[in-house]
């Protein structure tokens, strides 16, 4: 008796709400995916159940690779994301170490400054920044994004790595210094190898943010062949009055896939990265 009561309780308190959340949070992905593998004509057939696939086709994906600049957008996004991630991680390791371990004039002030930079949204800066990019002659070059993305990534990554470095016992460093190692040698040979999980968190988080960025890419990369995936899909695939829903959804699915894939491999690192700022310990 007790067991069955427990089961119906669990059903009501856990599984029912869980079903609601799974449907609410995953339905848009389900919808995008099934539309992307339907022939366009099937969409107009109102007697078909739109929640299911009547005829399966990869035509929309083929169209994407043969008739649009999608492959170039993938290349651009990949280059920009990888390079900005490396630049940001490099800068953030140095900042994180300096703020975690070294006492120097202005360190407190700089720490707060970095935290505030984390809260500065791109929408506040994009108009003047567009002028800076134009003056430097960087429009429609990878540099426009490679140099500006780190401003969104460094604050977060430095903060995360600083927290990570602080968990490493100081004694390790002190004994190495007694042995004559310099600070930089310690950083490279001892701190970094011990911080690989933190570096992974910061790295995949930075990569994801670069891949997903929209506003700067929209403004700084206006030429069709230089666009990133989100901007290319949104501005070049939605044109005519009759939308090619199938290929539009196919491009959204394909553009999201690498991030979803990366994420499912590194869930733990994502979550520890995400919660690092909000939860202590």
């Amino acid at each position: 008796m007790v067991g069955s009561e427990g089961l119906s309780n669990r059903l009501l308190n856990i599984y029912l709400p869980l079903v609601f959340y799974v449907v609410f949070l995953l339905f848009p992905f389900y919808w995008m995916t099934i539309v992307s593998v339907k022939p366009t004509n099937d969409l107009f057939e109102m007697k078909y159940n739109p929640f299911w696939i009547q005829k399966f086709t990869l035509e929309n994906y083929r169209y994407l690779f043969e008739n649009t600049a999608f492959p170039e957008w993938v290349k651009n996004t990949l280059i920009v994301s990888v390079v900005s991630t490396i630049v940001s991680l490099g800068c953030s390791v140095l900042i994180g170490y300096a703020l975690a371990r070294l006492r120097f004039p202005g360190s407190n002030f700089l720490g707060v400054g970095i935290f505030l930079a984390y809260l500065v949204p791109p929408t506040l800066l994009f108009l003047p920044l567009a002028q800076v990019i134009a003056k430097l002659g960087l429009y429609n070059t990878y540099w426009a994004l490679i140099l500006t993305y780190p401003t969104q990534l460094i604050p977060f990554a430095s903060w995360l790595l600083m927290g990570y470095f602080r968990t490493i016992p100081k004694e390790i460093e002190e004994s190495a210094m007694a042995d004559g190692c310099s600070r930089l040698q310690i950083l490279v040979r001892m701190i970094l190898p011990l911080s690989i999980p933190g570096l992974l968190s910061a790295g995949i988080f930075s990569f994801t943010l670069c891949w997903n960025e929209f506003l700067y890419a929209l403004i700084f990369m206006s030429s069709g062949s230089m666009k990133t995936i989100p901007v290319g899909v949104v501005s070049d695939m939605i044109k005519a009055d009759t939308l090619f829903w199938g290929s539009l959804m196919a491009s959204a699915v394909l553009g999201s896939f690498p991030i979803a894939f990366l994420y499912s491999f590194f869930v733990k690192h994502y979550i520890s990265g995400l919660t690092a700022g909000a939860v202590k310990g």
Partner: protein
Amino acid sequence: MGVSQAIARKGEFRGGAVSAKSLFERESSLGVILMLPGALLLMVFMAYPFFLGIWLSLTDSGIGRPGEFIGLRNFVDLLDDSIFHQTTRNTFIYALVTVPFKAALGLGLALVLNNRMRFSSPVRAAVMMPWIVPTALSTLGWFMIFDPVFSPISWLLKNLGLISKNINFLGDPTLAISSVCLANIWRGTPFFGIIILAGLQAVPAELQEAAAIDGAGMWHRFLHVTVPHIKGVVLIAGLLSIIWTFADFQLIYVLTKGGPANQTHIFGTYAYQIGLSATEIGVGAAIALYMFPILAVFAIILLVYLRREE
């Protein structure tokens, strides 16, 4: 180790090498040197544009047309602009209405996920997807879900006999703001969910058990054991979410571009339209800067709270 010591000592005899090396050894100078590369990028591409934006907002600059100083005229003119009024209202609705929904739904999600159950790790991973994947792309899914012709919601309601005509989610001026809010709530719920879940997992199990043994009911335990433990993370997540939502751009840009009839314009999209599409950079910069004091208030609350916690 002896070798590097020997090298260091050897260096002492060469004047230049010593000063360069000691620059990297003294904490005070090394700290500054390590800050430099990142700080330089932040100065050139964040701090400088910020001040340039203030200057631009005080001029009548257009694209390719250097402006002249006009004082606060852009800011004053905006106060008489009815679209700007609408934009301000929309932004506050968008940021302040969605956050309580995201927090409440996120809390529910976290409480559900905190139970032991089968397949808990793939489920946890899957429900995070709205927060992880590119927003511009997932918003395209919503763009179709909200389509006047192809909306699956309309199809379902029509087949259930609840409506006779398709719903115009994004084209109807009164409905559009609710629709964009719904998409935003969808996107932000997992963020709250995962942060609150981390907070829940930090609640000592003994505390829950002790309260249960004392005969505290589920609701009582939630209020007196769970809530005090997660209050802090909910507050932090809430403040971050308000700041991000307030300064959003892409979700609205993809769904409505601010329409219909400016009913969904927020600061970001209106600044874009005036600053770039209408090439009034000075006015656009002023619109964006109107966000600043509001963002600053939330940022300071967050900063003060975090400092106090330390």
